[in-house]
């Protein structure tokens, strides 16, 4: 089976980083992976995205026009990617920065107040980790343990932020699991 997703947001929100972490974790879990960044002529504060494919088979196209999942960290990303998700797929919405709901009714929606949670945990820059955790909780695409290991590695030179990033990841994970359980109960 194949998990593919597009992660999109403003430059600086760390969307490329969490995409890379997913690819690394997928590889650590023994899967085939690819990570493709947008590298267009954009500047800080502009939009930024990456496509990650995690598969049991060799990855075919690293270019995904119709992903199973779109993780959108800001409103322009929701506008751009909402319509592209495959029917039956999932839109993970950072509700802290997106003040409208997902219009589509044929996809699962996971609402994540990523910035609010990160702020509450005392590390406003860890909103991306909350979103990544929520994705993992909702899809189990790769193991939480593999990503936790990567957080420790990634921030090895800044040990002060490891705990808050791990907390953000775990809180997101729990939220993603909860939202999924609710969706299953109501038969969505």
């Amino acid at each position, binding site marked *: 089976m194949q998990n593919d997703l597009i992660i999109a947001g403003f430059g600086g929100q760390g969307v490329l980083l969490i995409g*890379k972490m997913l*690819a*690394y974790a997928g*590889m650590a879990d023994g899967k*085939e*992976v*690819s*990570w*493709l*960044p947008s*590298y*267009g*002529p954009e500047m800080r504060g502009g939009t930024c995205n990456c496509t990650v494919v995690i598969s049991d088979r060799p*990855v*075919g*196209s*690293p*270019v*995904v*026009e*119709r992903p199973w999942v779109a993780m959108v960290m800001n409103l322009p990303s929701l506008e751009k990617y909402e319509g592209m998700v495959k029917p039956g797929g999932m839109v993970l919405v950072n509700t802290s920065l997106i003040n409208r709901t997902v219009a589509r009714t044929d996809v699962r929606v996971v609402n994540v107040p990523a910035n609010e949670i990160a702020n509450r945990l005392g590390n406003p820059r860890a909103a991306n980790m909350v979103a990544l955790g929520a994705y993992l909780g909702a899809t189990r695409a790769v193991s939480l343990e593999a990503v936790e290991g990567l957080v420790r590695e990634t921030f090895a030179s800044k040990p002060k932020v490891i705990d808050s990033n791990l907390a953000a990841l775990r809180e997101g994970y729990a939220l993603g699991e909860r939202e999924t359980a609710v969706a299953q109960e109501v038969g969505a």
Partner: protein
Amino acid sequence: MAKKLMKGCEAIGEAAVKAGCKLFFGYPITPQNEIPEYMAHRLPQVGGTFVQAESEVAASNMIYGAAGSGERVFTSSSSPGISLMQEGISYIAGSELPVVIVNIMRAGPGLGGILPSQSDYFQATKGGGHGDYRLLVLAPWSVQEAADLVQDAFDLADFYRNPVMVLGDGLIGQMMEPVEFKPERTPCKPLAPKEWAATGCSGDRPTNIVNSLFLDPEVLERHNQKLKAKYDRMVRDEVRCASYGTDRPYDVLVVAYGTVARVSSTALDDLRGEGVDAALFRPITLFPFPHAELRAAAEKAQEVLVVELSTGQMIEDVRLALEGRKPIHFLGRQGGMLISPEAVAEKVKAIQASSAEVRRG
């Protein structure tokens, strides 16, 4: 060695180091800046030298000089930069020197854009610089294959004493995938000592001269014929290609190279789910082009579809290979726009539907 997640550009750089390349000369340009960045950091660790040239014209003359000394040497650039290097590349081919050139293609013409393209196919395979010469051109479809082909490129360059180009698009340079380097790699060609190299001598052997100037037309013609014999040998011995789904019956044969071939392979998987039979033929060497192999694969198809990130360049070699035997269709995007699996699948379905109608008709 364990698999490592690497960006295409970094894998290309590491592959060059693993192949024993000690010298890099180049000039920055998107989307391949991570190659010189990697070499700048990595070469000093292995006793090599990285030089950022003042321009691509200079870089191509630096690799010319360095190759004359017999060291393994490498440069990389992207489309406009490769255009600037053409004079040097022609001299290198004329002087029969081994160099490896990586072109991570971006959209043109002119400065164009920085996004992926395959619009330098003609330049890579049909000359680029002046004179009657050929590059051996290798086109990877994954980061792993880019790493493998770059290592082979050094062996092929040495064996034929000819420049070898690895032609990838921006996607190959920028995406990350797992890569594995074998600890003990056997060269893909038998390699003789470089007795021709201009390394300096104290009269104990005849002087070696590196030169592309032959003012006597009879001598130059003999030189041209010698080069031709070399290119003929490449055509005979170096063709590489791959196919996907050709073990089953198929109506449409898709021909694509590089990442576009991968996009097409996903389209074929999706089509199989819908009961549409199509197969993929992928040239890995663009020169020498796999004419006979393509002709054989197309025999079993009703229609052929060429997919490229250009307005249609490789399609000319496909036409030459098929000699009018099959109808040939084209799907292309330009300007840095990408082709999706969905677009390929739709085109295949449209071709199959109209082909079936004609046959019924």
